[in-house]
């Protein structure tokens, strides 16, 4: 019996994913290469957007170490990519908490997100927006969002996950994801009011 094209493709992807997971569990170089090629860009993007800084190489490496440590326990209750997003988001949350603590104890060490938190009012008053300036404001506005809101905007609006996948990755109930994301978008739009 011939399977429909889409089903065949899905089955092939599942097999490939099963092989990838098995290879990663065995520590095979080829599997590690595929894992990195497939997921490093997404993990990097999430880390950069969550931490508000490009200096996240160590953080990304730590996320992958966590992934490989935990992959033995991966039961496939969610898609592999959702599971990976979940680990990345959790690691970023921990890092933000660590940075906040460090900042609390040492006034010298300001976290990257604080460094970039320039009040929007103090920035250039020019009404004529250039793309670079707009991007700067967008970055600042994102960094000013509370991490619990920021992670949802990143996962849903920037990474394009469905509400269900966002709920799985963030470990939050889907209804709460919806209401929190509504608030997040409202706050973000408020911060960018001058362009609206």
């Amino acid at each position: 019996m011939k399977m429909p094209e889409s089903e065949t493709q899905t089955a092939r992807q599942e097999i490939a994913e099963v092989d990838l997971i098995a290879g990663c569990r065995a520590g095979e170089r080829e599997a590690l290469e595929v894992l990195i090629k497939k997921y490093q860009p997404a993990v990097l993007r999430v880390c950069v957007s969550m931490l508000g800084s490009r200096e996240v190489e160590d953080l990304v490496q730590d996320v992958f170490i966590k992934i490989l440590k935990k992959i033995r326990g991966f039961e496939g209750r969610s898609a592999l990519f959702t599971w990976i997003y979940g680990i990345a988001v959790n690691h970023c949350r921990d890092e933000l908490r660590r940075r906040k603590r460090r900042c609390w104890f040492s006034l010298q060490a300001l976290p990257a997100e604080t460094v970039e938190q320039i009040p929007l009012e103090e920035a250039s008053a020019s009404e004529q927006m250039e793309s670079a300036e707009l991007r700067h404001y967008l970055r600042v506005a994102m960094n000013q969002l509370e991490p619990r809101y920021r992670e949802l905007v990143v996962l849903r609006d920037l990474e394009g996950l469905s509400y269900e996948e966002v709920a799985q990755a963030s470990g939050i109930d889907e209804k709460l994801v919806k209401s929190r994301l509504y608030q997040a978008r409202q706050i973000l739009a408020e911060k960018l009011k001058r362009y609206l």
Partner: protein
Amino acid sequence: MSEPLQFQAHLADAVLWQWRKQELDAAEGAVAQRHLQSCASCQARAQTLGRLFEEMQTLHQAVQPALAERMRLLGRLEARFTPRANPRVLVAASRSLVRWLAPAIALLAVVFMLWREETVSAKNSLESLLSQTREEQLFMSSEEEDVQQALMELAFSPEEK
């Protein structure tokens, strides 16, 4: 006749956002659509929101790992998770091997020496026994000529040596 309330009030930014992403259900979407057709202000905001949203996505997608970053990550993961012949393991293995192998070889050497000694002494005692018999020359001969000579001697010599 006044319009229904939802047509009079402006749409919230988050609702415009949802509308752009087609997240509203059919009824909500229809209401938003009708409002946008009649409200220039919301239309303009929806357009700007769309532009901001696109810029945000472009900015986000522009973040890509450099090749060097990828290689460093692979190196770190390989060093940690790829099983390979670890020199420390080899050293430990060779140490335990030496611990067992050296006495075993010594023991084998002793056994060999003892066996060799026994063989030599057995040969010696056989030779001494042979020297007491008339067949000594026959047994000690290796050449055919010597064997024939020994046989002749055995045949024609007196009975006792």
